[in-house]
């Protein structure tokens, strides 16, 4: 059976029909706050239950609990604050209790009831969430550049933003129906922000051996410079699934959500999100959601011990490598050979082949996937 939603309630704050017509009219009269694409994506995710049980952006009590205890104020596990930052001058005429319209590119996205306006200590946020205040951490730089105040309260969604990957996008209620229709009882979620190389495929197939289905759910949206462009990732998976996975074992859909690079905390957050999509298991690999050397390779595995009530089972799968003596993909636990026989496939290595437009060895990346990557003038974010 698919997972119960987090907090036992799948949130739906998408307004439809006559109520939507009515609220769209009302939205015209309300004070407006223009939000970024990333925040608009968060708003839409809240409305569609991706962040269940959240019904809006966090108020201070939840924010503080999440920051220090990794739980909402009702004790439900939650590790990454979902917050909306504003400039003081944007809200001079707005007070707690007011309704406002959130807009993106001047189009109304949602109506938000402002329950609370509060200050935040960005440095403390970075210490708690990223375990770092070093500006070379992309999450730290991004956080320090955010606005000075936070507003919290529930939202009602009026409009979506343009989604170029519409045909690959499913919401939690849809994947839940889909998994049931497929009669999957166990589903492993796979988080990614990369094009798949053989190392990823090994991890996915190791998990798939033990569950009914695999839910591959790459993030699209804000990532750091040098990461793969969203379209490259989507098209690469399309060909990988077509050529190398049994048809009835995979569901592929994208999720518009920013990467935080918060390592362990983000690993738990990623698991919670996939639980809302109906996953019973979640694959946590080496250095999950990490960046540089900010987190220890398996630090993201440790943190799960603190959540006996998470409601989704983490699958800790070791980093895989190609072993010349074993003649295939293996991991530390099953390969007895020394390091000189082992070839580790990394994004960095793959990148070198891409930049030189040179065909990488077969054990590194599937030829169909590499062809897709090369079909882009520049597959990386500038």
């Amino acid at each position: 059976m698919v997972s119960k939603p987090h907090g036992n309630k799948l949130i739906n704050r998408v307004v439809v029909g006559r109520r939507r017509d009515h609220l769209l009219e009302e939205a015209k009269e309300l004070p407006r706050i223009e939000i970024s694409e990333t925040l608009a994506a968060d708003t839409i995710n809240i409305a569609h239950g991706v962040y269940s049980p959240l019904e809006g952006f966090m108020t201070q009590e939840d924010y503080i609990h999440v920051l220090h205890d990794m739980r909402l104020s009702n004790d439900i596990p939650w590790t990454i604050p979902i917050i909306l930052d504003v400039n003081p001058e944007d809200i001079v005429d707005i007070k707690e209790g007011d309704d406002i319209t959130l807009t993106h590119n001047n189009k109304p996205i949602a109506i938000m009831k402002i329950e609370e306006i509060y200050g935040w200590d960005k440095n403390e946020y970075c210490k708690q969430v990223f375990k770092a205040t070093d500006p070379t951490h992309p999450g730290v730089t991004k956080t320090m550049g955010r606005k000075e105040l936070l507003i919290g309260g529930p939202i009602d969604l009026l409009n979506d933003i343009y989604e170029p990957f519409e045909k690959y996008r499913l919401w939690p209620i849809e994947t839940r129906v889909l998994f049931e229709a497929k009669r999957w009882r166990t589903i492993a979620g796979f988080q990614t922000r990369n094009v798949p190389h053989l190392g990823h495929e090994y991890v996915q197939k190791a998990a798939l051996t033990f569950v009914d289905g695999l839910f591959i759910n790459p993030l699209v949206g804000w990532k750091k410079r040098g990461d793969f462009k969203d379209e490259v990732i989507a098209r690469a998976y399309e060909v990988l699934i077509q050529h190398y996975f049994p048809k009835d074992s995979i569901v592929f859909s994208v999720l518009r959500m920013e990467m935080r690079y918060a390592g362990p905390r983000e690993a738990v957050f990623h698991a919670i999100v996939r639980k809302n999509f109906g996953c019973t298991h979640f694959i946590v690999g080496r250095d999950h959601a990490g960046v540089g050397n900010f987190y220890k390779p398996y630090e993201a595995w440790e943190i799960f011990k603190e959540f006996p009530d998470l409601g989704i089972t983490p699958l800790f799968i070791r980093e895989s490598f190609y072993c010349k003596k074993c003649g295939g993909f293996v991991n530390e636990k099953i390969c007895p050979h020394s390091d000189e026989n082992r070839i580790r496939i990394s994004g960095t290595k793959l990148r070198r082949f891409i930049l030189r437009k040179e065909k990488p060895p077969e054990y590194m990346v599937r030829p169909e996937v590499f062809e897709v990557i090369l079909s882009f003038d520049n597959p990386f974010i500038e």
Partner: protein
Amino acid sequence: MFEDEFKKDSDVRRGKYTTVSIPITLYNRIKELIKDTGFTSVSQFVTYILREVIASMEREKLESSMISEEEKKRIIEKLRKLGYI
């Protein structure tokens, strides 16, 4: 400055705890059990176990499906169009 009018993180009380009573015999039993396990106190262990048990009881209380048949039909239709089914 304007934002000084609002509460800062440090103004909000955090890490609130309360006390519950358990028989002293149980307390001692737990204390013995958790030696060398990574649990650093009886309270930490009890919190862990309670969260585990309560989460599973809450899940059991839920009805199996929260989606109406009509909604389900609409979703299946969409999934067919997209080629997922």
